[in-house]
């Protein structure tokens, strides 16, 4: 049966995040030939609505209010509830980001609904929508569905392919008004720690350094490689604990979970808590001077050697490759 699915578009630095386009693609599957509606919440988000449509949404809804300039759970809950009251959809999809993780369980509780968090796949099986999600820190997977009532899920970045952007596609964009008030939390300040450039959680290529990088300066060759490849730099907790880099780079069980197309681990031993954050990456390369390091067990390709020798050579090699392919 065709369904109406609402997808929340999330912005960062004034742009829509990739995961929102991925959620639209998931929404197409969930809608079963029904309608996908892009929802934008903020203080001036109207201009982005057409972009959600170009990526496959059928129409857009915006909720704008000066009290929505920063994300707060209460503000965004009020805004999204106003949209739900009007639209009465069959399903809701968010990205499994800091925002999605904060907002979705709260809404689900309010709506007395089930919620499937951190899905890496969506499919239709015998007319039912089934989600796949990692459990036990990525060591196993489960298939979960919601039999009846609202379909509600969050989508892990980088797992479901977005649809191709269609410049010619357009649709209706309307606005819903909501009175955003009585917010119980206020954002006083935001301290940016994450590096500019490629968003680690969404990066297609991640170059990660561990304790083997040995110092703050030791990250420089990794940064250069990341730059050549258009990737982001990440780290093990070992490197963060040693103060070689900021905790915002940490990947693993207690850090970020990433699933890039290519993960290059440099001077990382491959502790189970680190693997929890990256083992589902599509291709893993390990560079480590210890041939017995556990990281080689999950690697597709390995180089046993000194990262300070190997990484700069790789950078040079890719520079040549890139220059050649232009």
């Amino acid at each position: 049966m065709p369904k109406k699915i609402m997808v929340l578009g999330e912005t960062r630095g004034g742009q829509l995040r990739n995961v929102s386009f991925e959620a639209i693609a998931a929404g197409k599957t969930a809608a079963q030939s029904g309608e996908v509606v892009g929802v934008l919440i903020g203080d001036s988000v109207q201009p982005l609505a057409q972009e959600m449509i170009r990526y496959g949404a059928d129409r857009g809804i915006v909720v704008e209010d000066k009290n929505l300039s920063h994300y707060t759970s209460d503000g965004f809950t009020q805004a999204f509830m106003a949209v739900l009251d009007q639209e009465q959809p069959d399903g809701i999809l968010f990205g499994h980001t800091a925002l999605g993780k904060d907002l979705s369980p709260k809404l689900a509780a309010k709506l007395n609904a089930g919620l499937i968090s951190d899905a890496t796949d969506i499919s239709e099986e015998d007319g039912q929508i089934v989600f796949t999600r990692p459990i036990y820190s990525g060591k196993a997977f489960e298939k979960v569905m919601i039999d009846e009532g609202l379909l509600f899920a969050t989508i892990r970045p980088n797992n479901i392919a977005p649809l191709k952007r269609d410049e010619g596609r357009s649709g209706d964009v309307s606005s819903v008004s909501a009175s955003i008030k009585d917010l119980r939390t206020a954002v006083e300040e935001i301290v940016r720690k994450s590096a500019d450039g490629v968003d680690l959680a969404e990066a297609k290529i991640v170059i990660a350094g561990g304790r083997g990088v040995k110092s703050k300066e030791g990250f420089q060759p990794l940064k250069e490689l990341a730059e050549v490849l258009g990737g982001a730099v990440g780290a093990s907790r070992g490197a963060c604990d040693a103060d070689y880099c900021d905790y915002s780079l940490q990947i693993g069980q207690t850090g970020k979970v990433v699933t890039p197309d290519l993960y290059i681990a440099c001077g990382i031993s491959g502790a189970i808590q680190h693997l929890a954050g990256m083992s589902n990456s599509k291709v893993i390369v390990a560079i480590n001077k210890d041939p017995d390091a556990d990281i080689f067990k999950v690697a597709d390709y390995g180089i046993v050697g000194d990262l300070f020798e190997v990484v700069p050579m790789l950078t040079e090699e890719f520079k040549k490759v890139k220059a050649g392919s232009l």
Partner: protein
Amino acid sequence: MNLIVLMKRTFDTEEKITISDGRIQEDGAEFIINPYDEYAIEEAIQLRDKHGGEVTVITVGNDDAEKQLRTALAMGADKAVLINSEEDIEEGDQYTTSKILVGYLKDKEADIILAGNVAIDGGSGQVGPRVAEGLGIACVTTITNIEVNGQNVLITRDVEGDQEKISTSLPLLVTCQQGLNEPRYPSLPGIMKAKKKPLEELELDDLDLDEEEAAPKTKTTDRFMPPEKAAGRILKGDTADQVKELAALLRSEAKVI
């Protein structure tokens, strides 16, 4: 202050996982306090030591969770509550667990409820925010610092690596992120004392919550291991050749560049 910690007993994911008949095999596996809940317990103890009051640790589970509750008491919590759902409900999800917790907490007038950011086995991160909503109190997730001043609370939260400074007020539910503190190990005297601390065991009947109300909304139809990865290839030859080969493989074989 009335401080309440939501604690989950989790499978130690350092352990090898095996699945049979679509279920995770738990026999002989190690169980631990969910690592994020250790941050919650530690923070609650520190808040109590600073502001006075009492720390109660609660778990929804079965008898086996008594071990982890005793560990929390040995760390310094004052009381433990085990809500044993085993007899009454067979199937459960995050909706179920939160309904049960809300059923217990609704008349407890907690000042601060501390939960973990996420459970390392189930991995949804839903239970904390769901409980806050069920109780009608504010919720701040993934906190790395908290300062309480009378009714006012200042919090730093981690947002994908950036820091957000939040002001809010009691009562409040927070979920704890790495970086909040360094959880202590139980001391020997702590372990001795824990044996005498109160550990209350309740069943659903005691909460005046009927099973229907807590019936799960989601259904797990299968559990499986990721496809076994083919053994990786360790490149050979001198370093320069290995680097060239790697770059070529990533382009032509893996097709990721």
